[in-house]
């Protein structure tokens, strides 16, 4: 037994020495770093605050696939799902601001702070760029009695709380999209949260609910096969994939809501590094192969540079603050 303990002690000492040596070795290059943006010299991680296989994940993977050649270093995806993205947002904003941890955040980052449940904050990120934007849309069964958005909303107005509107989770962007419609038109829905867009669409197909407020891409297959129909999209212009579907604006309702995804690094990341990342990811975004992939996935590409993206997020942030307040979605912690 004594011998064992001696061995344990020895190994511990050796590993400690390694730690110390590691600190010393690592500290030197950091001192020189500011002027020489020799970046990147090791693999870059993209935090995806959602599970593997979803839209955000696919987008990030497709981008990483292109960006790794441009940056000359591996770009790996780290999925950190949970709490409407909060887990990943928080991990991303508290990461070391050296540019090696990029986060792909999305609309919920300007919503969850208002819900009073988490410390996610888009101001803790230096945005790199916005990548994608998808509008919300109201979709009903193809054999539903409403032919136009107006008929649907008139029915909802006449029968407050009777139209069951599925969304992808409480406080999710699609929940707030439906709430925005309520806010702007004075109707009252019965919001039914599901564990994502797909289960909500399934419930609609099965007739458990009357309508869903998700993106056109998420109902694309069922619309194409004639089982569902889209009444209107909440954006400025019609969707490329569904040119015959009118926007809310065209039908006389001032409602523009959508989800978006963008890239950012923690605050404090050196300017030149952000620029290198921006240039690489922008180039990846312009790659025809990537554009084709995004197209097939039904993800609308909508580039915004860092400055505009910041303004855009600030506006959304203020907007949702009012809406969450109005809806009483804030979780009071007693």
């Amino acid at each position, binding site marked *: 037994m004594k011998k*064992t303990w001696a061995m*344990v002690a020895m190994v511990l000492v050796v*590993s400690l020495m*390694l*730690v110390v040596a590691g*600190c010393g*070795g690592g500290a030197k290059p950091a001192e020189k770093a500011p002027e020489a943006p020799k970046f990147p010299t090791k693999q870059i991680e993209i935090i995806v605050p959602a599970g593997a296989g979803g839209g955000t994940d696919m987008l990030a993977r497709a981008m990483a696939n292109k960006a790794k050649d441009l940056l000359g270093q591996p770009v*790996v995806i*780290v999925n950190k799902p949970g709490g409407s993205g909060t887990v990943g947002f928080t991990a991303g904003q508290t990461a070391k601001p050296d540019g090696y941890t990029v986060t792909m955040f999305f609309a919920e980052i300007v919503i969850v702070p208002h819900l009073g449940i988490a410390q996610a904050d888009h101001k803790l990120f230096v945005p790199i760029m916005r990548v994608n934007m998808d509008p919300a849309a109201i979709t009903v069964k193809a054999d539903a009695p409403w032919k136009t958005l107006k008929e649907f909303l008139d029915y909802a107005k006449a029968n407050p709380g009777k139209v069951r509107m599925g969304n992808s989770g409480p406080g999710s962007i699609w929940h707030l999209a439906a709430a925005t419609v309520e806010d702007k038109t004075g109707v009252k829905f019965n919001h039914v949260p599901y564990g994502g867009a797909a289960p909500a669409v399934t419930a609609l197909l099965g007739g458990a609910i009357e309508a869903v407020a998700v993106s056109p891409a998420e109902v694309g297959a069922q619309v194409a096969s004639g089982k569902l129909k889209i009444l209107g999209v909440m954006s400025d212009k019609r969707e490329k994939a569904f040119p015959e579907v009118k926007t809310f604006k065209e039908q006389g309702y001032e409602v523009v809501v959508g989800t978006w995804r963008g890239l950012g690094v923690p605050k404090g990341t050196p300017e030149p590094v952000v620029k290198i990342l921006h240039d690489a990811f922008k180039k990846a975004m312009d790659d025809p192969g990537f554009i084709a992939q995004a197209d097939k996935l039904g993800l609308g590409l909508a580039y915004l540079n860092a400055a505009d993206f910041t303004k855009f997020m600030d506006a959304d942030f203020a907007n949702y603050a009012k809406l969450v307040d109005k809806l009483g979605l804030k979780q009071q912690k007693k």
Partner: protein
Amino acid sequence: MKRGSIVAGFLLIALAIVVWIGSAAFTADSSYFPRAVAAIMLGLTILMLLENRTVRDQVVFEWEKFNYRRTAIIFVITSIYLVIMAYVGFLITTPICLLLMMQVLEKGDWKVKILSSVITTAAIYYVFQMMLDVPLPAWSF
């Protein structure tokens, strides 16, 4: 067994009470289910304690025979490994940790141990990091 059940019983009753009180602050919808579960658990625990009175006292484990010391050492090594790995990375800490544990469990035969710990580390690293791009904790200095 009897004494163990009583200890466990009291812990469970405490847990049920904590859950009951903890869910008081929840919005009404969110509190029904936890409270129902807490109540059922309380009932079951009391049932268990009552049943326990009629059961003959069986010995579950004897402390003298129970080699808790080695289990505790392994547990401590694993815990230290978890903490150090977060900073030093997977590749360095893993073989050391493996060697240590193997040595605690059975002394001697260094060749086999070194070989197996190095091969294990390399194999895991290869499959996770190289083949599948699943990142493992890396050197973070």
